C-alpha cells in the first residue's frame, strides 16, 4: 500500500496549460477518482503519476519518496514506480495471446518460468478468463478484453492501480457489473487506486474520494457523499447529479427566522443559511416534493413534461420563465400540462455566491 502526493504540479502542452498548479494527496489504500469533463486534465494527471508524462513544475512523491521533482531534477521512470496502469483502449498487444500479454511484465522482471505460469494462471482464474489463455485479444469480447487488461496490470503485484476510463468502452449493462467487481478488487487488494472518468455515477459509486477537475485544477476534493450533498461551487454542483441540480437565481435578504429568498416567480422563507444579495440556489431534484392537490406550503407550477423511468419519474415543471426538474420516487400518475404544487425544503438548499460561484455556508441537514 502506498500514498501518492502531488505538489504544485503544472503541465503545459505548447501554449495550452493542461494542469495548473495542482496539489493532491491520495492516502494509502484510498480509491480516488479524478472526475471532470473531457479536456480537464484528469488523464494528464494520471499519466504524470504513472511517469509517462513529465510535469513542467512541482513534485510528485510516492510513499514519501520523490519520483519527480522539478527543483531537484528527479525523474523516476515509470517501470520503477511499482504501479500498474489500465488504458482506456486497454492497449492489449494484438500479436500476443492473453497469456503472453499478462506474462509480459513478469518476464521482463526475469521471474522464473514456473512462477510466471503459476501467477498468470492464478490471476486469470480469479478473473474468470482462465480458459481463454491461448486466445488473441481481438478474438474476445470487450468485457473479456477488459479483464485481460486488469490481469496484465495485476500480474506484477503493483502497489498502486491507475485506471484511465477503463469502463467507457463497455456496454451499459457490463459497465454496472464491472463497477462492483472493481470495487471488490480494490477492497481485496487494498491497493491505492487512482481512477479517471467523466462518468459521475462511476465516481460516486466506487470511490472513497473524488477530485472534481476543471481546466487543469481540482475544484473539490471530498468524499462522494459530500461532493453530492454539498458541492463546493456551482461547477461541481452542476456537474454532479443526474438529473441535473436546479440552479435558480435569487435575491437573499436576512430576516427573522432565517434568510428570505426571492426568486423571479416565487419566494422561499426561513433558509437556515445566512446570506444577502444576489445568490444562486442549488436544489437537487429529489429535494422537491410534489403535491397534486393545492398545498399551502407549495408553489403552483404547471407540468411541462413527465418522463417515467420505472423506479422514478422525472418531472419538468414551469412557472413563467422558471423551470425546475423534480425526481419523484412515489408511483403516482402525473399528466402533462396539469398544475402541481411544489414544496422546497429550505434545509436542503445550497446557496452560492452569484459573483464567485462558491458555496456560501453549507446548509445544516
Amino acid at each position: 500500500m502506498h500514498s501518492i502526493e502531488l505538489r504544485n504540479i503544472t503541465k503545459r502542452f505548447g501554449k495550452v496549460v493542461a494542469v495548473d498548479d495542482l496539489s493532491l494527496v491520495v492516502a494509502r489504500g484510498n480509491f480516488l477518482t479524478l472526475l471532470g469533463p473531457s479536456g480537464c486534465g484528469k488523464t494528464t494527471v494520471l499519466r504524470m503519476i504513472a511517469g509517462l508524462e513529465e510535469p513542467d513544475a512541482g513534485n510528485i512523491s510516492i510513499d514519501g519518496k520523490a519520483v519527480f521533482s522539478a527543483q531537484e531534477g528527479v525523474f523516476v521512470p515509470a517501470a520503477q514506480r511499482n504501479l500498474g496502469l489500465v488504458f482506456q483502449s486497454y492497449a492489449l498487444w494484438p500479436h500476443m495471446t492473453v497469456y503472453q500479454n499478462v506474462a509480459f511484465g513478469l518476464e521482463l522482471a526475469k521471474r522464473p518460468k514456473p512462477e510466471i505460469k503459476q501467477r498468470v494462471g492464478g490471476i486469470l482464474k480469479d478473473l474468470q478468463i482462465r480458459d481463454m489463455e491461448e486466445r488473441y485479444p481481438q478474438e474476445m469480447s470487450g468485457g473479456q478484453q477488459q479483464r485481460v487488461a486488469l490481469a496484465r496490470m495485476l500480474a506484477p503485484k503493483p502497489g498502486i492501480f491507475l485506471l484511465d476510463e477503463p469502463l467507457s468502452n463497455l456496454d451499459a449493462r457490463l459497465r454496472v457489473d464491472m463497477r462492483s467487481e472493481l470495487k471488490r478488487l480494490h477492497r481485496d487488494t487494498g491497493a491505492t487506486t487512482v481512477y479517471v472518468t467523466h462518468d459521475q455515477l462511476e465516481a460516486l459509486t466506487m470511490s472513497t474520494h473524488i477530485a472534481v477537475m476543471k481546466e487543469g485544477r481540482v475544484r473539490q476534493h471530498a468524499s462522494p457523499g459530500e461532493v453530492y450533498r454539498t458541492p463546493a461551487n456551482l461547477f461541481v454542483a452542476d456537474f454532479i447529479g443526474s438529473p441535473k441540480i436546479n440552479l435558480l437565481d435569487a435575491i437573499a435578504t436576512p430576516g427573522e427566522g432565517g434568510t428570505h429568498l426571492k426568486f423571479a416567480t416565487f419566494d422561499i422563507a426561513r433558509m437556515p443559511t445566512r446570506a444577502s444579495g444576489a445568490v444562486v440556489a442549488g436544489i437537487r431534484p429529489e429535494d422537491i416534493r410534489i403535491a397534486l392537490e393545492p398545498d399551502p406550503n407549495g408553489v403552483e407550477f404547471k407540468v411541462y413534461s413527465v418522463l417515467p423511468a420505472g423506479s422514478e419519474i422525472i418531472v419538468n415543471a414551469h412557472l413563467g420563465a422558471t423551470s425546475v426538474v423534480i425526481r419523484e420516487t412515489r408511483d403516482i400518475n402525473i399528466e402533462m400540462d396539469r398544475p402541481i404544487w411544489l414544496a422546497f425544503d429550505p434545509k436542503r438548499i445550497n446557496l452560492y455566491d452569484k459573483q464567485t460561484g462558491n458555496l456560501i455556508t453549507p446548509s445544516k441537514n
Partner: protein
Amino acid sequence: MTAVAFPTWFAPTARRAWRRLTRPHIVLGLILLTVLFYLVVIPLLIMIQTTITWQVEDQRLARGTVPGEFTLFHWDRVFNSVISQTMLWTPLQNTLVTSIGISIFALSIGSLLAWLVVRSDLPGKGYISSIAIIPYMLPSWTISLAWIVVFKNQRIGGSMGFFEALTRIAVPDWLSYGPVPIIITLSLHYYAFAFLLVSGALQSLDARLEESGEILGASRWQVLTRITFPLVIPAVLSALILTFSRAMGSFGTPAFLGNPVRYYVLSTTLYNNIQSRLQADGFVLGLVLIAISIVTIYINQRIIGVRKSFVTLTGKGFTSTPVHLRAFKYPIFIIVITFLTIAVFAPLLFLGYQSLMLNKNSYALDNLSLHFWIGESNPKIADGIGGILQEGQTWASTWNSVALAAITGVITSLLGIFLGYAVVKGRGTWLSKIIEQVAFLPYLMPSIAFGAIYLGMFAQPMGPIPALYGTFWLLVVVSVAKHLPYSSRSGTAAVMQVGGELEEAAVVGGASWFTRFRRIIIPLTTAGLVSGFLLTFITTMRELSLIVLLVTPATRTLPTLNFRYSEQGYHQPGDALAIMLVVIILFSEWFVRHFRGAQIGKGLGA
C-alpha cells in the same frame, strides 16, 4: 554524484535537459536527421556547387579557367548561348509535350478504369484490377521495346517491324519513333499508377456520403459529378502531378523511341551530357528538372489547398450498391479486356516472339530459335552474343539486381519504421517536422536527376563514408534515398496505427526502448514492413533511370544490361532479358503476396 561547483539550479536543469534529449525518439530522430542530411541535402548542395564552379573538363571549352573557382559559365552556356536551343529549349519543350500528354492519357485511362472497377457492376472486376496493376510492376520501357518490335520501319529501324512485315504497309516515321509512341507507350505504363491511387481514394470514400445525396433526390449522374468527383479530386490531381513528375524523369522509353530520330528530352540530354563528360552542364539540366517538379507540386498544393494532399486515402472497405452499366455493360467489358490485352499481354508476346528470332529481320516461323535464350556463343550471330542463360553477365546482373532490390527493400522498410517512429512520437516538435520534410525531398527530384546528384557525391570519402563511386553500395544508397518519401510515409502510417498506448503499456511494464521496439513496434508493423519491402523490391528491380548513370560493368543490373543490348541494336537478347526480369518480378510479387498477404498498393504510403 559528487559535488560540483555549479550554481545550484544548474544540475537539476541540466539533468532535465539531458533527459529530454535522450528520450528515444529524440536520439533516433537526431541520428536519422544526420543520415538524411548525408543522403539528400549534401548531394543536392554538391550538385548545385558543381554547376557554379569551373570543372577540370572545362579547360577544353574555355581558356584560363581555374578548376574550383566560381563561375556562371555553365548556367550561361545552357540558358543563353548558341547551343541553348539544342541543349535546353528543344528538349525542354519535348519534355513538357510528352509529359503532359502522358499525364492526361494515363490519368484518364486510370481513373476511368478505377471507377469501373470500384463502383460499377462490370463483370470480373477482381481479375481486371489484378491484371490492371501489372504494368506498374514492370519496367516502363518494356512496352517501348515491344513498340519497336511492332512498328519500326526500314528507313530508320534498319529492318521491318511486325506490322510492316504482316501488312506490307510502310509505317510512317512519326508512328515508329518520336513523341507519339513515347506518349502512347508511357501512358500504357503510368495509367496503372493512376489506377492504384484513384481506386484507393474511391474505395475509402464513405458510401453514405453518396447515399445521402441519393436520398435527397440526386440522380446517379448528379451524385457522380456533384459528390463523388469533388471528393476524389485531390487524389486525382495528385496522381496527375506524380505522373507528370515521373514521366519527366523517365529515361528508358525516350531513349529507345526518341534517340533514333534525334528527338531528345531533358532526361536523355542530361544522360548524353554526362556521357560526354559535361557533368556540370548535365547537372544544370538536372536542376531544371527538379525546379519544374517543385513548381508543379507547389501548384498542386495551392490548387487543392490542403497540404500533403499527395497522401492517398487507403481503402476502408465501404460497400455500396454498384452503378449499373445496363446495356453498356458488355461493350465496356470488351473494351476493357482489349485494352488490358494491348497494355499487358501483347508487349510481352511480341518481346517473346522477337527474342526467338535468330535473324532479326525475318518474322518467318522457320527463323524461330532458342539461340538467344540457351544458345552457345557463335561469332557469326550477333557478334558472338550467346543465349542469355549461357552468358555470365546475365547471371552476374541478375544477382546484382536481386541483391540490390532485396537489400534496398530491407533497409528501406526498416528505415521507414524508424523514421515513422521518430516522426509520430515527436509530433509537433521541430525535429519531427524537419525529418518529414527532408525525407520528402527526393520526391521532388526526377529519378535521372537524383541519380546525377549521386554521381558527384561519394566520389571521394566524406566524413565517415568511404568513397563509393563505382561500387554496388552506391546503388544501394541511391535506391534507399530515392525511396525515402515512400518509406517514411508508410512507416509513419504503420507506427501511427500501432498507437501510443500499446507502447506505453510496455513502458509501465518495465520494457526498455530496445525491448519495446523488438517485441511491440516491429511485430505490430510487420504488415506495413512487408508491403513496403515488396514495393521497394519491385521498383528497385526494374529501375533504370535512377541508376543508369551510376552503374559500371561490375555492378550492372538486369535493366541496365538490357539497356546496353538495346542501345547497341542487339534486340533479341535484350528482349529475352526483359522477359526474364518480368518473370522474376511477377514471381516475387506473387510469392510475397501469397505468403505474407502484402499488397503493393499499401506500400505506396499512407
